[in-house]
């Protein structure tokens, strides 16, 4: 059955993997994903879930992803929660999310401790500033890529611009900005689809 995982696009609700992965398998699967994910974990999560272990079909993965992007919180953590819960309930979610976070958490603290030792060296500080500058470019590029689908939809461009001005320029606290912008934007979307 595991080989037969090519789900047709019309199949709305394909079943779960033939043999549900154990908690241990969930932990280990996401452990490896966590260690691989440089500059974005999602591509590695997709490869593990869809291509290597075949716990999800491509279509199921897209659905899991869109739900985890829609909900608040770190997207990849949400993916691990949904996948874990689908196969093993609460303990599956805990195993998957713990596996995902364990190594990156330890590695980043080790890096920070190491950095503190060598921060006095000019080249090390320079390298760190260079990484910051490049990583800033990554964030801006992601924003630009995400903005592309809004092209031509005037109200969506306006909402994106308003959000940018509120947060980046006016520095309005996120809670208040979202409390106004999110309902307004959802209301417009609601009216537009009628």
């Amino acid at each position: 059955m595991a080989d037969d995982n090519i789900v047709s696009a019309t199949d709305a609700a394909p079943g779960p993997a033939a043999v549900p992965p154990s908690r241990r398998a969930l932990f280990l699967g996401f452990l490896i994903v966590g260690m691989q994910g440089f500059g974005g974990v999602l591509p590695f999560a997709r490869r593990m879930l869809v291509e290597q272990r075949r716990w999800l079909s491509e279509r199921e993965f897209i659905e899991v992803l869109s739900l985890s992007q829609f909900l608040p919180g770190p997207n990849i953590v949400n993916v691990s929660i949904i996948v874990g819960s689908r196969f093993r309930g609460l303990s599956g979610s805990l195993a998957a999310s713990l596996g995902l976070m364990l190594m990156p958490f330890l590695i980043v603290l080790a890096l920070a401790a190491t950095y503190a030792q060598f921060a006095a060296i000019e080249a090390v500080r320079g390298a760190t500033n260079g990484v910051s500058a490049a990583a800033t470019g990554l964030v801006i590029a992601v924003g630009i890529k995400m903005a592309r689908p809004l092209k031509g939809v005037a109200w969506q461009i306006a909402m994106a611009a308003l959000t940018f001005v509120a947060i980046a320029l006016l520095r309005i606290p996120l809670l208040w900005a979202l409390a106004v912008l999110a309902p307004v934007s959802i209301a417009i979307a609601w009216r537009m689809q009628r």
Partner: protein
Amino acid sequence: MSLPLLADLAQQFALLSFLAIGGVNALLPEIHRRVVESAHWLTDTDFAQAFAIAQAAPGPNLLIVSLIGWKVQGFLGALVATIAICAPSSALTFAVAHVWDRFRDAPLRRAIQHGLAPVTVGLVLASGFILARTVDQSVIAVGLTVATVVAVLTTRLHPLWLLAAGAAVGALVAV
């Protein structure tokens, strides 16, 4: 160890967990506003360093939160901050995952998704702006940021190569 500080860390990031629409990258301006501008737990330089180290490490980009916790209260602070940014949204996700599929084609779900999309875009671009203002303190740094944006949009280079290039240029010319 300071329990009030740990509790403050937990409370700050637990609230942010619910506000993290569009992931942690969209949260960076708010994190900066809270931990640098309001609480003064970190300086701009600390924030930029934490951002760089978190990006250079493998794993989710929420690791900047772990490093802020580390800076404030050591290992325990890192643990508390990391759990606080993950747990509330994870609990919500766990609860919603079970009912979500039933509303697959509901108009309200589509409206929510279409409505939040542009807000998320605005948040991520605001993050880029705040980061650039915090991080790009020299002409070379600005050049690196711009070059990275262009490289991402016009090539298929793995992000790790771009970070490595940033590190190499930074080490050589001490940005």
